[in-house]
Structures are given as C-alpha cells and as structure tokens.
C-alpha cells in the first residue's frame, strides 16, 4: 500500500524536472538541463546516483548530434532522462531497461506539446506589438512569465502522466511480457552506452 507521501514525492520530483527543463531552451541554457548533468544531479538528490548517471549518460550521448538549429525541434533529451529517472525512483520503480523507452516516448510527446506552445506563442508577439503601437508600457514580465509557466506546466503534466499513468501500466506489463521482449529491452539497455559512443563519434566527426 502506498500512502500519500509516496505519491506526493513523485509529484514534487516531476516539478523539479519541469523547472530544470526550462533551462533547455527558454532560460539561460547553462547546460543544467543536459542529461549528463541533470541525470547524476537528480540521481544524487533522489538516492539513485547509478541510475541517474547511467540514464543521463545514455540520453546525453544519443542526443549529442541532434542540434536545435533554426526552427528544428529535436527530441527533448532532458525529458527522456527525467521521465526515465522518475520511473526508476518512483513508488513502484521500473527496471531501467523498461524506463528508458518510456522516457523516449515521453520526449516524443513533449516535442508535440512544445510544438503546440511554440505555435501559440505568436499571440504573445501580436500582443506585444499591439501594446507598443498603442503606446503602452510593454508587459515583458507578464508575457515571459506566461510563456515559462505554460511550458513548465506542460512538462509537469507529462511527467505526472509518466509517473501515475505509464509507470504503473508498464510495471504491470513488464511482469507479463514474453521473455524475448524483456531480453530485447535489456540487451538494448546494455548496448545503450556503446550506441551512444557511436553517436558521439559521429557528432565529433561531422561539423554542424
């Protein structure tokens, strides 16, 4: 039986991931949100340094040559690592081999959410232009605050969906999956660092 504390703690953790994710594009870009930094850091905070480092390293290497150039929206590696780590540290922890694919799926879903917000934010531009034209003092803080709050809320909702929805479902499925599927997922996880190193070689070989 899991008490309220057991469920609320993942919600607080999801909020931390949502706040750190803002660093990926919108605030600062200090690399705090990069999986190789965020994974071990959150792993240390949540008493799971090994999983944090392993997931962070794997997501970092796999996303190393996926560049946010122009209007290109790459899969969000922060969300992938964050969701996977939340699932391995949750009230009913998932094996890492199962959590990482869920993390990738969350990153894909986040890409859709972010695309939606990026389209909607043009309304903020229109509001800013209208306000300046009418000679009002621009409400920069309000527009920026709204934009950041929307982004963080989207990420937070997705993280909660992972912890409270996908986590229990995948956890239940994991016990019923055929051996071959489990073996396939575990092999991919074991090969993950090697695949990531191949991607890293590619990132350093080809200039953006």
């Amino acid at each position: 039986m899991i008490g309220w504390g057991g469920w609320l703690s993942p919600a607080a953790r999801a909020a931390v991931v949502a706040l750190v994710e803002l660093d990926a594009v919108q605030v600062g870009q200090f690399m705090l949100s990069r999986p190789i930094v965020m994974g071990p850091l959150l792993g240390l905070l949540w008493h799971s340094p090994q999983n944090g480092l392993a997931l962070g390293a794997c997501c970092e290497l796999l996303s190393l040559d996926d560049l946010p150039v122009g209007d290109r929206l790459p899969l969000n590696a922060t969300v992938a690592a964050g969701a996977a780590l939340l699932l391995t540290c949750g009230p009913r922890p998932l094996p890492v081999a199962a959590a990482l694919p869920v993390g990738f799926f969350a990153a894909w879903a986040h890409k859709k959410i972010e695309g939606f917000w990026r389209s909607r934010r043009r309304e903020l531009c229109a509001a800013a232009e209208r306000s300046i034209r009418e000679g009002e003092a621009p409400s920069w803080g309000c527009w920026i605050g709204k934009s950041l709050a929307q982004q963080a809320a989207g990420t937070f909702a997705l993280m909660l969906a992972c912890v409270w929805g996908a986590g229990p479902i995948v956890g239940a499925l994991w016990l019923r999956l055929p051996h071959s599927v489990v073996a396939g997922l575990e092999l991919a996880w074991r090969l993950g660092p090697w695949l990531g190193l191949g991607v890293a070689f590619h990132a350093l070989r080809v200039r953006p």
Partner: protein
Amino acid sequence: MSVGMQGSLFGRSLLLQSCWNFERMQSLGLGFCLEPWLARCWSGQGDGGREARLRHQEYFNTQPYMASLIVGMICALEEEVAGSPAAARPGKIARLQSLKAAAASALAGLGDALFWGALRPFCAGLALTGALALGFGSWRAAAWAAAAGLIAYNAVALPLRWRFLRRGYEWKDQIANRLKSWQGQRFIRDLRWTGLALIWAAVALLLRDTAPAQRLAGVLALIAALALRGARVSAYRIYGGAVLAGLAASWAGWL
C-alpha cells in the same frame, strides 16, 4: 555602456528564448533584452522609442549565445540613430536592420559549430570519461559528471557571453572583420579533437569494465551506430533497432 547596463542586458539576454515561437522566433526576447537600453537612448524623444521597440519586434533568430554580440551591436547602432538628426535616421535605421539580419545568420553558423558542435560534446566526453575512471556506480562518479559538465561548459560559455556584449558594442558594423582575426576556427578544431580523444578514452574505459563475452557486441553496436548515424538514421531509431535485434536474438536462442 556602463557595467551596470551591461549586467542588465546580460541578465535579460538569458531570457532571449523565453517566448520562442515559429513566427518571429526570438523577437519578443530580444525586445525584452533591449528594453533598458532603448529606454535610455530614446528617453524624451517622442515616438522614437516606440518605433525603436517596434522595429525589434520583427523576425529575429540566431544562436542564443552569439546573440550577445548582436545585442551589443544593436545597442551601439541604436545609440547612433537616436543621436543623429531626423533626416539621417531612415538611412541609419535601414543599415541597422540589414546588419542585424546579416549578423544573425552569419553568427548562428559560428555559434552552432562552437557551442553545440564542439563545446557540448567536449564537456559530455569530459564528464563521461571522468565518471568511468572513478567507477561508474559510485556517488563520486555521479558528482564528477554533474560538476565537470556544468563547470567546464559554463567556464567557457558564460565569460564569452558576457564579453560578446561589450565586443558587439565596440565593434558595431565591424563584427565580421574582427571575427576574421579571432582564432575561433582553431579553437573549435582543437576542442573537437580533444573531445574525440576523450570519447576514445571512454571507449577504452568501457572496454575495461565490460565482461569479455560482451565486448564484441559492444564494439559492433558502436560501429553500427556510427554507420547508421552517417546514413541519417536517428539515434532513437537506432536504439529501437537494438531492441528488435535483442528480440530476434532471444527468439533465435542466442540470449
């Protein structure tokens, strides 16, 4: 430009992408960043300030770290426009707009190569290699990876972003000429070579820590990933392929 003003612009430039959108990309963030400077330049000049704010609400996009150079340049050119007689302003504004657009696209290429293409892989290599050397499962390895990645990256990126503001202001329309004499390309090349050496070291350490029976599979996976990325297959699909390969191997009784 006083240090206080530079600090204010720098702090605001950290939110350049806060309202990034597909239509005008970084324009709203740029407007927010330039606000204190425009307010200072155009105070008491009637509609000049409003028009200045409006002209920076047009499409703008560049590499976020290189934007500091452009912000500095815009500050210098806006100061020039505000200080010139009304008849000379349209020409100066047109020059400002074209310089801003040209610098945004030219500096984006340089910034992508430097920060995304060289510094980020270098820092990832440094964090990973150190963590593997310290023993991957330990808390020390995790602490190293987080600290090394964060500190190494920001030790280069933050001072550059700060200095770019001042340089952009001083260089004005001479940014392209000044950057030609900067040893940036050499720095990028050296960083990439060092990053490559760190990734090789990570491979060696991973081989050391892997059971002999699994080393061949690991090296084959690395080569396959390198080849597939060369063929533009996404890294996530490659991971999915590894799951399918595991599934097939399990069905064949190899696992």
